[in-house]
């Protein structure tokens, strides 16, 4: 088996269809703030009050499920791709193996929740951007991109979904999201601890890793998916992120990046509607 497994080769059964992030970004259509949708919604936050709440929650849950599959695969590759002791500490690999188990459980939970919500495996397209962030040849960049940026996003997503479940009175959704949230906080902490430890005497490597994290944060803020604005479906979960080791400065930076992405998306949509024949 090769070291460093390319994202294009991720193995899936016949039900799944994958798309790259570039393909996703090429889709200029909006999901909010337009004509009839604007009339029906006062906010884009994913709450049961949204007219499309059920389908939006189902779609997000499917996204969570495939994201968990890729997180599982990414953590597994980090166990394998690097020589123990020389390229990655033994204890770091133990943490990654632990993450494999956690992510495998999260897939199991997400599959069960998807069934509960009436979604079939592979019903929605799978964006492979998460695994792409786990393909770096430097384990520190993987920790920054996956454990801090993506698992950080997972904290935001699970917090939103947990609140969705509580508001809707869905007993399973709130219960399961809370458990997964606890694990994600642990994964982000792992990333923060290892990033600091490994780059303790290598400021250049640390800067590179933090820059990579920022790029991934921006990619995942694409479309204004997550921010502190009501226009974003997912709310930036400051409290849980603090528990996971994000500093105030880091949180403000993520909030700024997210808001910038939301504004970019808003402008792009306005351009689409302006050029649309209807």
């Amino acid at each position, binding site marked *: 088996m090769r070291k460093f497994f390319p994202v294009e080769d991720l193995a899936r059964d016949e039900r799944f269809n994958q798309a790259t992030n570039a393909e996703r970004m090429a889709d200029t259509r909006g999901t909010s703030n337009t004509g009839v949708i604007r009339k029906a919604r006062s906010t884009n936050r994913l709450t049961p009050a949204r007219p499309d709440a059920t389908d939006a929650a189902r779609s997000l849950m499917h996204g969570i499920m495939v994201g968990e599959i890729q997180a599982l695969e990414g953590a597994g*590759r980090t166990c394998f791709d690097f020589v123990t002791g020389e390229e990655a500490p033994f204890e770091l690999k133990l943490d990654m193996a632990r993450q494999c188990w956690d992510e495998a459980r999260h897939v199991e939970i997400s599959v069960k929740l998807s069934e509960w919500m009436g979604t079939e495996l592979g019903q929605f397209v799978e964006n492979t951007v998460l*695994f792409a962030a786990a393909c770096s040849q430097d384990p520190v960049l993987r920790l920054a991109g996956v454990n801090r940026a993506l698992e950080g996003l997972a904290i935001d997503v699970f917090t939103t979904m947990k609140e969705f479940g509580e508001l809707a009175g869905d007993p399973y959704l709130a219960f399961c999201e809370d458990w997964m949230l606890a694990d994600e906080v642990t994964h982000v902490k792992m990333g923060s601890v290892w990033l600091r430890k490994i780059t303790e005497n290598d400021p250049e490597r640390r800067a590179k890793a933090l820059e990579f994290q920022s790029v991934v944060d921006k990619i995942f803020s694409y479309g204004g998916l997550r921010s502190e604005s009501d226009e974003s479906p997912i709310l930036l979960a400051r409290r849980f992120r603090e528990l996971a080791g994000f500093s105030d400065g880091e949180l403000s930076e993520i909030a700024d990046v997210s808001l910038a992405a939301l504004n970019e998306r808003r402008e792009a949509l306005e351009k689409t509607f302006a050029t649309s024949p209807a």
Partner: protein
Amino acid sequence: MADPFKARNPFAPWDRRELPGMFDVEETARRVGHYKWAEMKLFEVLGGWIATVPEIDVKLRLGTHCYKHAWHAELWHNRLPELREMNPERLTCPPNDAMVRFVAALTEPEAPEMTIEKLVGVYRVFIPHFISAYTFHLNNTSQITDGPTSRSIKFILQDEFDDWRDGEMLIQSLLTTPAEVKRASEHQARLEILLIEAGGIAGPGTIGSADVE
């Protein structure tokens, strides 16, 4: 109530543990180092394979089992300094080159169509050999002086039996034609031959000798 000051035997009548054991401290450390190396190789390859298998149930089991073997490696890593090996890395090694060749052959399959080979290597060859090596160790070490190793082995064996059953059931669910059965048995034989050459997970004498002296 019985008199609390009445003399009692330190070994209760039901406690039949004995002092003698086959392994001294040095030999125990040597074996534990090999166990750690083998468990590490196993958790690494299980992790690496997750992205390569299309079957979602297999993918999830590999993820779960990956952690268990990492935990076993951690138990052995922590045991080594207690066995007077202050540099655990020194003893974290394969017993011989044949064992390295075995792990290389085990790790070789990558294509998504090779799930049978991947599972057979782990669940019909490697894990059964872990079970036999650990069982031999547990049954031959001093039940009193080497209590910590015995305790770890008991935890680990529970995992190995559970995972072996999971893996065997997955294999049986994937073997649906005579050609697939043949593929599985040929791969098993190839790996088994390499492991025989290595003498087992801890090298020659891993499970002692059944020959009449």
